[in-house]
């Protein structure tokens, strides 16, 4: 038996008829067609499925869709402006080569967004700690750290050069 779940997705009200055992991840990708959010491990280890629910980063593979009802969900699709200009963090990932194969990138970007919202001026140790739940098997992380550091600087009004 399906139930109706409604929430705000990247600023827009959405409603979906879903089976109640669905995960938020499944509904985002399969029902709503927002495939930016990825499934990696399916057990909360890799962070590829990271989205924000009411501002808090969560693993959408462990998040029952019924719990999303009435919340505001932000996915990687919600970061760029409607006209397509990238957010400072997305821009910095591009500039620093923070994405290689790109599969982990949406999750890492969302973890970065959550970090910078809470701590606009993180130390390197704080950035690393904030990315504990995100695995990247390509980049070696250095470019990712550079990107987040740069985005923090740009967002605070500094220059990225």
């Amino acid at each position: 038996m399906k139930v109706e779940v409604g929430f705000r997705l990247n600023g827009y009200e959405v409603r979906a008829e879903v089976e109640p055992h669905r995960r938020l991840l499944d509904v985002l990708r399969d029902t709503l067609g927002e495939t930016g959010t990825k499934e990696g491990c399916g057990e909360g280890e890799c962070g590829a499925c990271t989205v924000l629910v009411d501002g808090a980063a969560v693993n959408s593979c462990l998040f029952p869709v019924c719990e999303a009802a009435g919340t505001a969900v932000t996915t990687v699709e919600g970061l760029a402006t409607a006209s397509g200009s990238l957010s400072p963090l997305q821009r910095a990932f591009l500039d620093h080569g923070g994405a290689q194969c790109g599969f982990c990138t949406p999750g890492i970007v969302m973890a970065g967004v959550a970090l910078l919202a809470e701590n606009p001026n993180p130390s390197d140790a704080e950035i690393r700690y904030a990315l504990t739940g995100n695995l990247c098997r390509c980049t070696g992380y250095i470019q990712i750290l550079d990107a987040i550091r740069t985005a923090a600087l740009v967002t605070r009004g500094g220059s990225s050069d």
Partner: protein
Amino acid sequence: MRFEYYQPSTTAEALELAARFPDAEIIAGGTDLMVRLNKTRRRPPALISLRRVRELAHIENGAGLRIGAAVPLRDVAAHPAVTAGYPALVDAIRVFGSPQIRNMATLAGNLCNASPGADCAPPLLIYDAVVELRSAAGVRELTIEDFILGPGATALEAGEIVTAIRLPPLPPDARSMYLRKGRVQMDLAITGVAARLELDGAICVAARIAAGAVAPVPRRLSRTESVVAGAAAGAETWARARAEAQDEISPISDVRASEQYRRHLTGVLVERSLAQLASTSGGGT
């Protein structure tokens, strides 16, 4: 396949559902339960979620603390009364999973999952925490020792819900901490040691020591505590505590560490935590 997801908004409603569906699973953060459900095709007839039960979503600060079963670990570690009075619990949450996991997982869920290596269990043991269980029949309270019965096994009965974890008030001069070693932050503990020390001058008046991942259940090390209680604070006592702890635990060898390494490391953490606690000023932090 029939499957219902219930989201009660009061404890009474949750208990009514738990009585009606004795085979239902209770879900709070879901970070253990959802992994289990994702990996199997078998589903419980119902999930009863505690996330919208407002009575369970906050921390009451009166005589000690009462932490509702739906409070995410992130909020537990950020609560001023927890950081001021129960630092070992903050230490444990700091090494617990990832930010994403800490935004969802709960203390009650960590105990109900009953992993031998549950990071929050050793701190709760040294603080004499009490598990509050409710059912249609009423309320009962169990110590952590009486609640966690074995790997994955608890005293929770059908129709019963863990509604809160209570932390009794501590003596004002109690010092405490939790040290955990894993291969990397995201991995499970190889061993974790929580220690609490009360000093009167150079004498250890009281000690509480608990360890995780080195026995079928997280447990107090009472023999090690006896070595410390009444002894002079100093390197000799800490070394004796290390040796006693190494002998007292019953670790296994697995993919993360050998039995010998777990014994060695647990002793080191016992010695290190006691030395650190004795060298800091009192007052809990």
